[in-house]
């Protein structure tokens, strides 16, 4: 146990976490150069492309240290984004120490701090590393100062490296052995193993990643999940060395995989504790927190005949994404689809991208929503995330909406712009903290619904790309929330209805009606496009009746070309959604529901 180190790497996005992981793996010869492809831990195409890690993973490395001893290093990968903080948490629970990376040119960012707090919460020892020292803009001294002042860590312990160019990798490995602690735990006690990850393997079913806290996890033993109560036989245990390597048992302090014949990820709760049936532990390990969705949206196929494909794709995706919650949904305008719950905006984005890319589906997503607590006049409290389920205004006594604590880090000269942005997004309270050398932290309490659309993009442009943003969920607070219906030619378009704060309702309704007016082709009659709260019209645009064709010529007997154009136009009409007597092209829904606009 003394020669084992369980650690993770935490960093702000793009600060080089995956690259450092690659170098550590290479340095320990866990993978031959021939098999090596950059960022081996990120095994999804999307992860590699976006340079973010979505699913946790772990790898066991053998390292011969300068003291001559052979160490077993268990590198536990963590996702780098706020949406996945519960995944970060459970990864951290499997560790005893963490490497914290700071970019030598960018310095400490919002997620660096957020991750630091998470690591401290879990009592992890921290080894700071300054990456990208080869960059022209690198300022190692300034970053050391930030590590001291913003992170409160020993600046002189920080190891300067360039993961990309392989500089300082040996020093990091030695640092892990010398500064990070060995695991603790009672070898003879009843088994307590933390399940911190699960992945679907089409041949073996669910493969769990576990950290043994006490006792020993043996192949062939019978185990129970202490929270869910499910019982299984352990078919196989072993270590992840990029390929699975079988072992007889995972000892106390060990990190490895467990296969028990579980078929679906729905039967696994990450954070659960495994114990032995014959000699169970008294209590499960602490820190168990089920993931819960906070952002909701309905997903429809672009053409209704793609619904079976969408169903298959979502089911397949959910095999590996326990946090994705979904149920069948139907819209008069868009047909069958799914109401989905996500951990946050990035999670929504990733699911949407994966459906498009891995399953080649064209999708329409309804406006993202948060979960509101609605108190009815009869005293009942209901949770509503879907505008379709919003009660009649007369039945509502009050509404509460979720708030977040947003942490925004900006250079001092952009602070005004960032604070204005927060105020525009209904922030309830705002505080500023001076960090090192001209950097500020803004801590704002604001509604989660306010950051669902374009907040991050606006922050980036208001701060010339220097602002970083992170948030944690706070609580529920009263809000004047209304349901806005969108009416095309006096017919409600159910898929376009949205829930919004009354201050924001009109602006968004106007944006919707203008976008629709732009993308719905003219008809033989004038079409009003309206936004309404109940019977009260709050926004209106008009699509004029058609008056003049664009193509007037039919010259020299070239009738074929014109006929083919017309055929194309008629085909296009077939694809349109009919709302009342108005044909709405799919592009109209897409243009309205794009989330990068208010």
């Amino acid at each position, binding site marked *: 146990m003394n020669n084992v180190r369980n650690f993770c790497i935490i960093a702000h996005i793009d600060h080089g976490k995956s690259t450092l992981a690659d170098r550590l793996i290479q340095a320990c010869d866990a993978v031959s150069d021939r098999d090596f492809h950059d960022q081996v831990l990120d095994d999804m195409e999307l992860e590699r492309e976006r340079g973010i890690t979505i699913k946790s993973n772990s790898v066991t490395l053998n390292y011969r240290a300068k003291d001559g001893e052979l160490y077993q290093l268990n590198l536990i990968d963590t996702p780098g984004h706020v949406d996945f903080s519960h995944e970060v948490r459970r990864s951290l629970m499997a560790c005893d120490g963490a490497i914290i990376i700071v970019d030598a040119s960018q310095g400490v960012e919002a997620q660096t701090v957020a991750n630091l707090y998470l690591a401290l919460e879990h009592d992890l020892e921290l080894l700071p590393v300054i990456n990208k020292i080869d960059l022209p803009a690198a300022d190692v001294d300034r970053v050391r100062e930030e590590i001291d002042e913003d992170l409160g860590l020993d600046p002189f312990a920080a190891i300067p490296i360039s993961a990309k160019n392989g500089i300082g990798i040996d020093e990091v490995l030695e640092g892990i052995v010398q500064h990070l602690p060995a695991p603790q735990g009672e070898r003879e006690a009843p088994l307590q193993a933390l399940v911190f990850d699960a992945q679907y393997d089409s041949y073996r079913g669910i493969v769990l990643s576990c950290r043994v806290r006490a006792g020993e996890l043996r192949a062939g033993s019978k185990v129970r999940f202490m929270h869910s109560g499910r019982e299984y036989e352990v078919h196989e245990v072993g270590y992840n060395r990029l390929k699975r390597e079988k072992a007889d048992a995972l000892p106390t302090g060990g990190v490895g995989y467990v296969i028990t014949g579980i078929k679906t990820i729905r039967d696994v709760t990450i954070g659960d504790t495994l114990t032995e049936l014959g000699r169970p532990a008294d209590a499960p390990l602490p820190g168990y927190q089920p993931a819960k969705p906070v952002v909701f949206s309905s997903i429809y196929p672009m053409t209704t005949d793609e619904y079976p494909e969408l169903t298959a794709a979502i089911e397949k995706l959910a095999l590996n994404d326990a946090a994705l919650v979904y149920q069948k949904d139907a819209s008069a305008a868009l047909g069958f689809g799914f109401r989905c719950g996500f951990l946050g905006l990035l999670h929504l984005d990733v699911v949407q991208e994966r459906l498009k890319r891995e399953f080649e589906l064209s999708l329409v997503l309804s406006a993202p929503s948060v979960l509101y607590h609605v108190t009815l006049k009869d005293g009942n409290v209901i949770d509503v995330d879907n505008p379709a389920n919003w009660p009649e205004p007369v039945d509502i006594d009050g509404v509460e909406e979720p708030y977040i604590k947003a942490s925004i880090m900006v250079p001092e000269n952009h602070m005004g712009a960032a604070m204005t942005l927060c105020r525009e997004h209904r922030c309830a309270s705002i505080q500023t903290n001076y960090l090192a050398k001209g950097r500020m932290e803004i801590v704002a309490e604001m509604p989660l619904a306010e950051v669902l659309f374009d907040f991050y993009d606006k922050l980036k442009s208001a701060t010339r790309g220097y602002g970083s943003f992170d948030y944690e969920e706070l609580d529920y607070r009263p809000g004047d929330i209304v349901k806005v219906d969108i009416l095309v030619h006096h017919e409600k378009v159910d898929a376009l209805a949205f829930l919004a704060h009354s201050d924001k309702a009109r602006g968004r309704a106007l944006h919707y009606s203008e976008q629709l007016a732009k993308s719905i082709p*003219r008809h*033989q*009659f004038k079409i009003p496009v309206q936004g309404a709260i109940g019977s009260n019209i709050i926004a209106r645009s008009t699509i*004029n*009746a*058609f*008056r*003049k*064709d*664009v*193509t*007037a*010529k*039919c*010259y*020299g*007997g*070239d*009738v*074929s070309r*014109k*006929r083919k154009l*017309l*055929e194309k*136009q*008629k085909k296009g*009409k077939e694809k349109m959604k009919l709302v009342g007597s108005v044909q709405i092209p799919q592009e109209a829904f897409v243009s309205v529901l794009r989330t990068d606009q208010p």
Partner: protein
Amino acid sequence: MRPGIAVRPDNAGLYVHVPFCSAVCPYCDFAVSVARPGEHAAFLSAVSAEAHNYRDWPLPFDTVYFGGGTPSALSGTALQELLATLRAALPIAPDARVFLEANPEDITPAYLGGVTGLGVHTLSLGVQSFDDRELRLLGRRHTGAQALEAVRRCLAAGIHTVSVDVIFGLPGQSRAELEVTLRAIEQLRPHHVSCYQLTIHEGTNFHRRERSGRLTQLEEDRQAELYEYLTRRLAECGLQPYEVSNFARAPQFQSLHNNKYWRHVPYLGLGPSAHSFDGSKRWWNLRNHRAYADALTEARTPVDDCETLEAADLALETLMLGIRTAAGIDLDAYRERFAVDLASVNAELLSELCALDYVECTPASLAPTPRGMAVADALAAQLDTGL
């Protein structure tokens, strides 16, 4: 094909595409280019060779149309020889009407003398506008004054139908600017006017300018206003629309040739990019005039591609072309050809379109109103052929 679908006419139309211009206009997407030395001769012998390929054409031609490009780029003598060659190779009726397109700057007394000698029935002048600023924008090589003079000369020469071709809906064009051209037409009193709305085609200079933001197409409502205005003004001048873009002083001045395109009457097209139709098949020649001439020199076919029109295609064309004409769609003829009652297939839509003043429906015909004619394409897209 089911019997009855083909129109059974007594005559066909002959079209000859002359692909040359003195310069290529910045909005034009037709198969045209500026001729190099010797290319006129190569073109003429290619057309002659192509005409001989069709010596067994079954129907007599009662219209011969020289279009382009700029047919007046050919000299009067060259045109005379071309017509003689065609008459020798093809069944052209002795009294066939000859249609000729010409540019105003080419209408010299000598040229005019030559073409009247050929018995030209209709002379279409590519005036486009009588306003000098607009003519410069359109890249034309004549002035408003030259255009006025050319139309006067043609009218004085006693040609049966003198047509003035106009382009409207220019970027930023106001009613007052269009009025300059309309007033000239009012004074000149031509027999026929064609008014084409400026459309910006891909690959043209205008399209490049539009993409780079240096030129903006007039928006739909402004186009509609100009079209409504010019329709009203031309009516005041005695010119009635008989098709979306064509206006005639009296029925005898309507284009007998163009009517064939609209009514599925067979036509033979010679020259690069020319289209032909025999009642069920349509084929078209190579666009590039050099490739066209080379093919014929090497005794290969100059045909680029062809299609056989199924009943559904013919029905859609009948609908799409018929709704562009003032006479509209002949419902009895449609029922006879396609065994479909168009009015009952579209009953619900038609009652709506009637109520909104887009179409007029009688038991015999379905015709656009003036308001409907402006959106004939949109109406065609709504109507169901029933096939």
